């Protein structure tokens, strides 16, 4: 057990440390919430983009089909139809959808890997840090009590 003679501490600095730990816990909890929010916002944004390009692909595919039917009719009448622009538009939508889907997959993988670390960090904030603060405040209380005892005899 630590005796009064072994105690070397600036109580004000320890109080400041305990208060700083409390501020740290609140601040980091807010950080963790914002981090989770950013991940969800990215997922939602990618889904919105995917949905938009799916719709565009459907419309562009319909335009290409109409163009090809028209071109076939024109070819029957001896004229040459040109659907290159429609084909390029369909290809662009397909490529962009593929890219978005790849990113959705990557983001899901990253978010899954991050979840474990984030969960441990939340446990730290909810369980370990309050224990550390409690320990520190008990130390401070002990130091204050021991110094009160020392005053009459000094």
């Amino acid at each position, binding site marked *: 057990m630590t005796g009064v003679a072994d105690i070397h501490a600036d109580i004000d600095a320890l109080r400041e440390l305990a208060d700083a730990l409390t501020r*740290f816990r609140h601040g980091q909890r807010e950080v963790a919430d914002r981090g989770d929010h950013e991940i969800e916002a990215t997922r939602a944004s990618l889904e919105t983009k995917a949905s938009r390009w799916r719709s565009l692909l459907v419309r562009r595919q319909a335009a290409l089909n109409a163009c090809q039917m028209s071109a076939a009719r024109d070819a029957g009448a001896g004229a040459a139809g040109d659907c290159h622009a429609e084909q390029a538009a369909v290809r662009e939508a397909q490529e962009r959808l593929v890219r978005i889907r790849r990113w959705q997959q990557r983001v899901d993988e990253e978010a899954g890997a991050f979840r474990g670390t984030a969960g441990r960090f939340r446990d730290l904030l909810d369980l370990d840090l309050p224990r550390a603060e409690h320990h520190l405040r008990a130390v401070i209380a002990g130091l204050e009590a021991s110094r009160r005892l020392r005053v009459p005899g000094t």
Partner: protein
Amino acid sequence: MPDRPDEDAERLLRVIEAAWHQAQQDWRDDMAGRFDRVHWAPVIAESRLYLRALRECLDIMNTAERDTDF
């Protein structure tokens, strides 16, 4: 524009480490050593792990957004 969460986390870590170093100037008894081992070191280690993971994850999120802004 608000800072990224990982930048705020880094700032909070710097503040708490400064408070610890300040407290250590005058707290050098057995209790200080125990507090360091049992509480402080794990808190800082886990916080640094989280910070690194958060930074990497947010970098990926930002790249995903940029790479799909057509």
